[in-house]
């Protein structure tokens, strides 16, 4: 373990301490993704089985879906993968600052996707009257896309933990500060995808900005405070941090997960949404 400041000297594609040369963490995540494939495989096939054998009175997907919105959030999720790849690239060069920027970008795009899902679910229930329990299509749709959304949300949380961890100083520092930092992150991300992004989408759909700001005033204020706290934490932190090039494998491992969740979404978007329009 040489000094983390020695940039560009680590081999990120080969770990000479393992039998295969693949880093242990990478192998673990790959095996986990194989498991997750089966997880989504079971969900997607259950959805398709029920879609192909609809009971009378089942919801009609094309009347429920808002395909423009979902296409947009799909695009955003795909772009988040680009930022994720740039974050991995940055940390492999030992550039912690750029890594943080790219992590935040990935997180923000992830939150836009999640916000789109929150908006979509709200409207499906309120306007299209499709709930989790009133049709089998609703049951399989919400369970499948909700499970995917949970995966994205866990990804956002993991990326956030990684982001906060990059501030852990080499010497000293307090656990309390670190926890508050994480709390600020969780509040900001939560408000972003539960209120801010769905609110903006409402504005795009025709609601006035003023109305949006007024009925979500409290959470938006909390989100603004949390964002300010994030800036403050970033500005006042000790610049000598433990995190560095040697942690590239940690970022890369979460990156694998993030890309996988993206790929699964491409399959879900095709099987659940696009095929309905054939």
């Amino acid at each position, binding site marked *: 373990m040489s000094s983390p400041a020695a940039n560009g000297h680590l081999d990120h594609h080969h770990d000479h301490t393992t*039998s295969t040369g693949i880093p242990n963490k990478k192998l*673990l995540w790959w095996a986990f993704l194989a498991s997750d494939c089966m997880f989504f495989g079971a969900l997607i096939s259950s959805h398709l089985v029920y879609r192909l054998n609809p009971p009378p009175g089942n919801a009609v997907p094309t009347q429920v879906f808002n395909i423009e919105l979902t296409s947009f959030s799909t695009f955003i999720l795909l772009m988040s993968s680009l930022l994720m790849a740039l974050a991995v690239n940055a940390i492999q060069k030992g550039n912690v600052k750029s890594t943080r920027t790219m992590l935040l970008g990935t997180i923000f795009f992830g939150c836009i996707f999640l916000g789109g899902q929150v908006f979509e679910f709200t409207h499906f229930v309120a306007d299209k009257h499709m709930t989790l329990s009133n049709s089998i299509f609703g049951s399989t749709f919400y369970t499948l896309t909700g499970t995917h959304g949970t995966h994205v949300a866990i990804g956002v949380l993991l990326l956030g933990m990684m982001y906060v961890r990059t501030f852990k100083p080499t010497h000293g520092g307090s656990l309390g500060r670190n926890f508050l930092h994480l709390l600020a992150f969780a509040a900001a991300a939560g408000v972003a995808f539960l209120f801010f992004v769905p609110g903006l989408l409402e504005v795009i759909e025709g609601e006035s900005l003023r109305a949006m700001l007024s009925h979500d005033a409290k959470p938006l204020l909390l989100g603004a405070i949390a964002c300010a706290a994030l800036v403050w934490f970033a500005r006042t932190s000790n610049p000598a941090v433990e995190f560095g090039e040697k942690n590239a494998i940690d970022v890369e491992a979460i990156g694998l997960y993030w890309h996988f969740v993206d790929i699964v979404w491409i399959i879900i978007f095709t099987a659940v949404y696009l095929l309905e329009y054939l």
Partner: protein
Amino acid sequence: MAKVITQSGFTGKEIAQPATTFSLFTRPTAKTGLVSWLTTVDHKKIGMLYGGFAILFFLIGGIEALMIRTQLMVPNNHFVSAQLYSELFTMHGTTMIFLAVMPLNAAFFNLLIPIQVGARDVAFPRLNSFSLWVWVVGAILLNVGWISHFVPSWNFGGAPDIGWFGYAPLTSKAFTPDLSTDFWVLGIQVLGVSSIVASLNFIVTIINLRAPGLTMMRLPVFTWMALVTSFLLVLALPAIAIALIMVMFDRNFGTNFFEVSGGGQPILWQHLFWVFGHPEVYILILPPMGYVSEILPTFARKPLFGYPIVVFSGVAIGFIGFGVWSHHMFTTGLGTVATAAFALATMAIAVPTGVKVFNWIGTLWGGRIVTRVPMMFALGFIWMFMMGGLSGIMHSAAPADAQQQDSYFVIAHFHYVLIGGATFALLAAIHFWFPKFFGRMVPEFWGKVSFWVIFAGFNATFFPMHFLGLNGMPRRTWTYDSNMGWNEGNLFATCGAYLLGLGMFTYFAVLVWSYFKGEKCGNDPWDARTLEWSIPSPPPEHNFAAIPTVHARDAWWYEKTHKEEIAQEKAAHIKAEESHGGIHMPDQSWYPLFAAAGLLVGAYNFAQLHYPVTMFGQQVLASHLPLAITGLGLMVAACYLWALEGPGGYHLHIDAEGKVTESRGDHH
């Protein structure tokens, strides 16, 4: 604790306590006592804990079985109520599969895999500890319902009573309105998490932590089977995870996955369950095939016959195992094409199994067979497992299966595979590796007595069930009338069950005696072949003073026959390692235990989500949701602290006399 730098080559700059900057709790360093077990990351201690808990549940499952047999001893019996009977057969099956055989296999995975691959621990030691404690959480959730029988105010509706397969729509609110099914659903889900996490760890350990020279085709067969089993677990468990989520949603959030009135199809449960459930059968039996493949060559004094064929048949079994699930559903009306396809696949999977049996016979052929106790159980395994396999082939013929479905013939079949097969091999393995991990031998005479009592009792119990089944006795029946022609068979089976119970009691009583009073033994009491026998009994914390270089398939056998070469090599390895700072050991941690505790709080409360929380008869909360969220929060917090804490670690230094000292300072 000694923190001494004894060697000049040590690269650490200063001696320091474990870093405390970012941990809420001081990193535990106890080597003995309760804390050392609760916070251990040592694969051997974790294996012992798995084994201890598994044997406890094996005995509980055995008592449940004896109660079932007592109820069926005579016709029209009222030893237990019909309700309790349902709970007993559900928990007998669930316990034996998830809380006895699987964790016993996990115990051996933990004890043996790192040593057999020549490593000092698994790839992720803290994750390994997490798997263990999550397993304990699952075991608690499954069994918590029993409290209702003793403390009526804890109203969980008794233990789960839906069968180990939990077929829909029996699991719907209409048929099991009480909480027992919710605890079953979450208990199995949590056990699945534990198994997946543990398997990921073992996959990485086996693939990535092999000692120099240990190619995949030199891996001991047990480790190979553990690898295949781990892949099966990782790939099969998600199917039941989804099915359990669907049941949970149906019961708690009003979905209609298995509600016919809402457009659901109960048959989907059967498919998802058996997509998991059939690979599960191989998850139970492949590790036992591994034990037997280690034990037979040792006591036949010959290398394993056809090693590559044994390995590839194991892989083939794992692969085909995913394509035969519908043979559990021949009577559901799949259609002729599907039925024919699954019947053929089922016949096909018997081929690699048969190949293995022939390889074991080939190993015995011409060997100088030593009939020590582990060998007796291993030979018993081959014979009994083959009988179970033969009745299994009978099931693959769909028309015949239609006659045997849900009858005692099926009970006879899978107990021959799971007791005559898996359990015999596990008993062989416990006896075989007991000296390694406790440093004492089990007395030969009492071992043989227990073998013969178990062998006789097992056959007396389950052989008559073939006839009972073909004479029409259905599974899961609480009682039967005296004019069905089943009286003699049931009485005989029950007497056999008591004999089997006596045999098991003898077996474990002898183990307890041996733990305290058994004759002490050296490294290699059986003159065996694999690496675990090259190190002291019980093994030291760091397993190997020098990481071995593997030169042959039977690595330890080669070492025994090339002593000078190996001694030079080891001296060089020790020197090289010391110049890199000594033997690196991982630090213990509280967080895996805390994360599991958070999961327990979360899952326990989530199971009773919609029920009000009461204390001393007063309602405190309208639902369990806040408590469930608190548990989840605790788990996330523990995981985050776990990540911040880092793997840590310290170094061991072994001097010329073999004295071990510790040092800290090279902070990773």
